[in-house]
């Protein structure tokens, strides 16, 4: 029996802040790589908004305008919002539901991983993919759609849409706790596709029936898209504050639901 190998008094086991930062970075890096290599994710999340934009913004309606804004410019905020939502929801909800349901999260929890690093990596990955989508739309719009804006407007739009990935990552965490590995993707589709349509992300909101325009007021994607449209000079329908408040409230509700799910999982273990 080798008793010497197992001194029971612990030596210095506290991580340095630099070590903790390294863990967070690695966790985020590999979460990003995991999705970048997952064709199902990149195809559905990256290519759909880009495809829609090319088709409806560059090929079909390129010479038209919505209000004073050219279609090619107007559709960057709306399809950008659409892409941000997909990237955030699929990255967090589908991943979390699968990790929870199929045992991978348990392996992680049994390891000394800082628990928050896992969630931070998911949110950071959604943020990066959201940024990639928006930059791709910018490039296409500038190159093929003749979109011209001050750099500050591009920066504002990018900032708003990237920040917009946070509420929908929170929603993804909430969904991930209340769906299973198989039910998560269809549940996400069932929620975000109709929600996107009703928020005016596919067809500009003013062309939707009046009833849907009223419903849009309670839909988070509507508020994000309005903020984004404001950045390209297409104006917002309500005051900017209202839109931010709506998104903040939505984020809080989703985080609250995610927390209930997290605790429910813990209690299952502590039950």
């Amino acid at each position, binding site marked *: *029996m*080798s*008793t*010497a*190998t*197992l001194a*029971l*008094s*612990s030596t210095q*086991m506290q*991580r340095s802040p630099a*070590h903790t930062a*390294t*863990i967070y970075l*690695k*966790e985020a890096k*590999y979460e990003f*790589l*995991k*999705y970048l*290599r*997952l064709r199902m994710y990149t195809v559905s999340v990256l290519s759909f908004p880009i495809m829609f934009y090319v088709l409806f913004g560059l090929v079909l309606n390129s010479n038209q305008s919505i209000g004073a804004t050219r279609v090619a410019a107007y559709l960057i905020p709306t399809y950008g919002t659409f892409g941000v939502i997909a990237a955030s929801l699929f990255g967090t909800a589908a991943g979390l539901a*699968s990790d929870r*349901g*199929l*045992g*991978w999260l*348990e*392996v992680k*929890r*049994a*390891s*000394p*991983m800082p628990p928050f690093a896992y969630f931070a990596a998911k949110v950071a990955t959604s943020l990066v993919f959201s940024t990639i989508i928006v930059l791709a739309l910018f490039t296409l719009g500038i190159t093929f759609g003749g979109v011209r804006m001050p750099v500050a407007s591009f920066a504002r739009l990018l900032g708003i849409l990237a920040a917009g990935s946070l509420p929908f990552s929170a929603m993804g965490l909430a969904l991930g706790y209340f769906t299973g*590995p198989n039910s998560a993707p269809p549940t996400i589709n069932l929620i975000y596709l109709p929600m996107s349509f009703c928020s005016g992300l596919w067809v500009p909101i003013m062309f939707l029936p009046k009833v849907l325009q009223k419903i849009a007021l309670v839909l988070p994607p509507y508020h994000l898209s309005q903020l984004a449209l404001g950045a390209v000079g297409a104006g917002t329908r309500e005051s900017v504050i209202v839109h931010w408040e709506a998104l903040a409230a939505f984020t809080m509700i989703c985080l609250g639901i995610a927390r209930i799910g997290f605790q429910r999982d813990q209690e299952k*273990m*502590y*039950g």
Partner: protein
Amino acid sequence: MIATLEEVSTTNSAGAVQVVASLECVNKNYGPVQALKGVNFRVRAGEVVALLGPNGAGKTTAVKLLLGLLQPNTGKVRVLGGDPTNPENRMRTGAMLQVGRVPETLRVREHIDLFSSYYQNPLPTAAVLAAAGLENLSERKFGDLSGGQRQRVLFALAICGNPDLLFLDEPTVGLDVEARRMLWEQIRQLVGRGKTVLLTTHYLQEADALADRVAVINKGEIIAEGSPSEIKAQTAGKRIRCITSLTIDTLRQIPGVTEVKEDREAFEIHTPEAEPVLRDLLARDANLSGLEVSAVGLEEAFLALTQDSSKNGNH
């Protein structure tokens, strides 16, 4: 400080031997299902303990309790003198669990790199790859690996932090004979480096090959504990097969008979010692035919052990 030595050490004739993981009177229920019933179980420093039992016996529950992934309904779980959920404890333990899906698009090297980063003093990646027999697979994506290779990656993740205490839940489940022997060899090397290992298995042969001590668990209860040879001795015996006109009840009353089963036209009789039972049998039935006597195999011995306990449980 997690705990003082006095709190956790026990003494035996060989001197002070530390208990590094223990379940004390642990009950664990999943709703109405009792997964563990008053289980007492200890792992001492430097030993390899096998928790042996059939599927659903409570092995995985025991491991998850020791990893702090589950909490007992009653009883105490201690690891390295403290609570298993202690972050300090997790730094010193490694775990191999049964996983439904591991992120498939990450490479072997990347999985190891990430898990190594969690630990204070991880092994060099090259050493982990070598210890798990993955040198030539480090650039492969997890999804492209075979079942045996995947198990080896999970094993690599368990050892990459150079932990003192390892929990391996069914490390060789679903592996072919060759892959199983390879993993055994890797576990033996770890033990050679002074690690403490708790592994679960439903193969007696595996427990026999690896463990210093075996605890047999069935239906949530530890029904036997000892060295592999003691466990085998408890269950070793002979199997007599014959065609006889005697009834099953008569056969059961023969002294020395532990178990009688009907097997098509014949009876199968288990006994620790064949000769006295044979004399008795032949004396009672002169027309007895088709006589065969054989040694009970390890797997059957184990089966007999767990079946006995379930019979007792039904009383």
